[in-house]
């Protein structure tokens, strides 16, 4: 078990280098650099330009910049933001809880609704219920995040006035962050209405971000369940005279969860991509907005470091999912 984790973590290193390389190259392929982005249209004298570029090390050959960057990362130093002069790790740890909160809620939303929806569709295969659920899943899966988000804002926030349009909490409330998670912090603050406000701010972003994983999980659960329900051991369970709930919910579902957990793990990566868009639509102060702004400012260290950190977290979650596999599937547990 321990050696498995160590092996997995060591395998992360080449992935990390590859990600660092890709972001490093990609951002430099975009026209402009941090100095030009800051000077704007007024321009700057060539001497000053050369001076600032030298300051930032941008006059070095790209390969040397990359090696220097790797060296820096290897020492745990992600650098400082060019535009704010704050260490990237500090910015990341301040902003990440917002993204994590949103992503966790979206994933919970997707899992809590998706698995039962898939199970119900599978047990009612070929009926109206099945077609409705799967039709809805297909629609959800095909919905562009931008359009879906705006649609929900238009209906729930603008027309019905039920939910706020943007942010994490009403400006009325102010308290020092303790955990960085607005739901917890607003609860701890004890301010009346703060928690409700935080919840109402979370609802739409959660739905928007959770829709695609929800659809994927529901469809995956359905197909896994359909396969499992035809297995001999499900017949054995029914031959024991167990209730349909026990047969489906325990004997079949436990087996069907194995592929579903894989999909949930894979969705985490997609969720981070979705979070960037969702945060932008809802002005959610998280990693997504931070990264998009860093692109506009050509803030190389922020973009490189931010993406590296996000990918690190995605990789960690995937390792965790692999471990969860073993818990679900005894055949894997013993093979290790």
């Amino acid at each position, binding site marked *: 078990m321990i050696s498995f984790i160590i092996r997995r973590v060591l395998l992360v290193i080449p992935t990390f280098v590859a990600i660092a390389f890709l972001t490093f190259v990609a951002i430099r392929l975009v026209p402009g650099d941090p100095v030009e982005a800051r000077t704007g249209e007024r321009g700057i004298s060539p001497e000053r330009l050369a001076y600032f570029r030298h300051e930032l090390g941008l006059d070095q050959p790209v390969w040397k910049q990359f090696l220097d960057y790797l060296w820096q990362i290897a020492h745990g130093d992600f650098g400082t933001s060019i535009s704010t002069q704050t260490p990237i790790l500090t910015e990341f740890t301040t902003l990440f809880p917002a993204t994590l909160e949103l992503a966790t809620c979206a994933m919970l939303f997707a899992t809590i609704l998706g698995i039962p929806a898939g199970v119900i569709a599978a047990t009612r295969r070929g009926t109206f219920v099945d077609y409705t659920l799967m039709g809805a899943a297909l629609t959800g899966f095909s919905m562009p995040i931008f359009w879906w988000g705006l649609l929900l804002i238009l209906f729930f926030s603008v027309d019905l006035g039920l939910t706020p349009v943007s942010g994490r909490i009403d400006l009325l409330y102010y308290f020092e962050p303790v955990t960085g998670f607005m739901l917890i912090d607003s609860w701890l603050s004890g301010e009346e209405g703060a928690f409700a406000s935080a919840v109402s701010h979370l609802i739409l972003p959660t739905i928007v971000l959770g829709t695609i994983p929800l659809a994927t999980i529901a469809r995956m659960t359905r197909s896994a369940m359909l396969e499992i329900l035809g*297995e*001999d*051991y499900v*017949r*054995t*369970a*029914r*031959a*024991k*005279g*167990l*209730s349909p709930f*026990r047969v489906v919910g325990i*004997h079949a579902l*436990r*087996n069907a969860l194995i592929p579903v957990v894989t999909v949930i793990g894979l969705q985490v990566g997609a969720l981070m991509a979705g979070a960037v868009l969702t945060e932008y639509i809802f002005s959610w102060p998280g990693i997504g907005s931070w990264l998009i702004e860093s692109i506009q400012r050509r803030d190389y260290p922020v973009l490189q470091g931010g993406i590296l950190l996000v990918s690190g977290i995605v990789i960690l979650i995937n390792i965790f999912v692999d471990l969860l596999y073993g818990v*679900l*599937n*005894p*055949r894997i547990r*013993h093979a290790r």
Partner: protein
Amino acid sequence: MPLLEISELSVDFKTGSGQFRAVDGVSLTVDRGEILAIVGESGSGKSVAMLAVMGLLPWTATVTAKTLAFDGRDLLTLSPRERRKLVGKDMAMIFQEPMSSLNPCFTVGYQIGESLKVHLGLTKSERRQRSIELLNAVGIPDPERRLSAFPHQLSGGMSQRVMIAMALACRPKLIIADEPTTALDVTIQAQILELLVSLQRETDTGLVLITHDMGVVAETAERVSVHYAGQKIEEQPVGPLFSDPHHPYTAALLAALPERAKGKHLPSIPGVVPGQFDRPPACLFEPRCRFATDRCRTKVPPRQGAIAGFALCHYPLTHGRPIGHPNPEGREVAA
């Protein structure tokens, strides 16, 4: 009153190409402490008939019967909930593929204990106690340790022993064993069969043994019901069946046993069991029967009396010769 009484049981499946009758008017009885063997080729509807008794058929199946009674209770009118109280408790089933019939995600102990919990409401320690007892009874060494084993850690023979233990858990009155040894190594087959029969004797349960292996029948059964294309075509006690089969199909089946072969070549029954689209209009065995006449092709055969083994035949055999047949020597049927 017999333990299990089935009369005129039919099972139809809805398929993409219309209705398919898998079981056609089958009548059977099983008494307490009796071993009934149901014999037939693949596709003869023997498993389906027993799955219908257990209520394990998929929703595409329609079950109709004049009587379907177990232990004096009418299974046809029981609510699903009432029926689940019988299934797994008073009647249990053992399946053909032990390796795939155990749930890979749960331990042996959990799977045996489950019916003890659901049907008998035993506590955790009582369940453990009883599970160990059961594993001991089915000859699994070191039962305490085996309780925490997962199915993939067991061999085929061990898995089938566990299946038997599960079936016996609530001391059922009837056990249905659907080809319990087919998927096992030859060396294990005899052991499992012996185990099943000895446990059946000890506990005085009724046992329905579904098989296509005449050797298994000869060794274990008391009464034999021979099935063909969904119909019961003959029923006799095991001795007379082997010495004097009355239906031409039974006779052909017995002649195909390797130990009965006289020449160099094994005799076989030409053709295959009719399917959904090539079902003969009258006698279902007629296309493969060496005694078939025009009457067999046009008129549904009658059910003979007990003397002729309830054979479903126009010309039941007596000592190998068809009674009342225009040409008692029969013809050679092209293979």
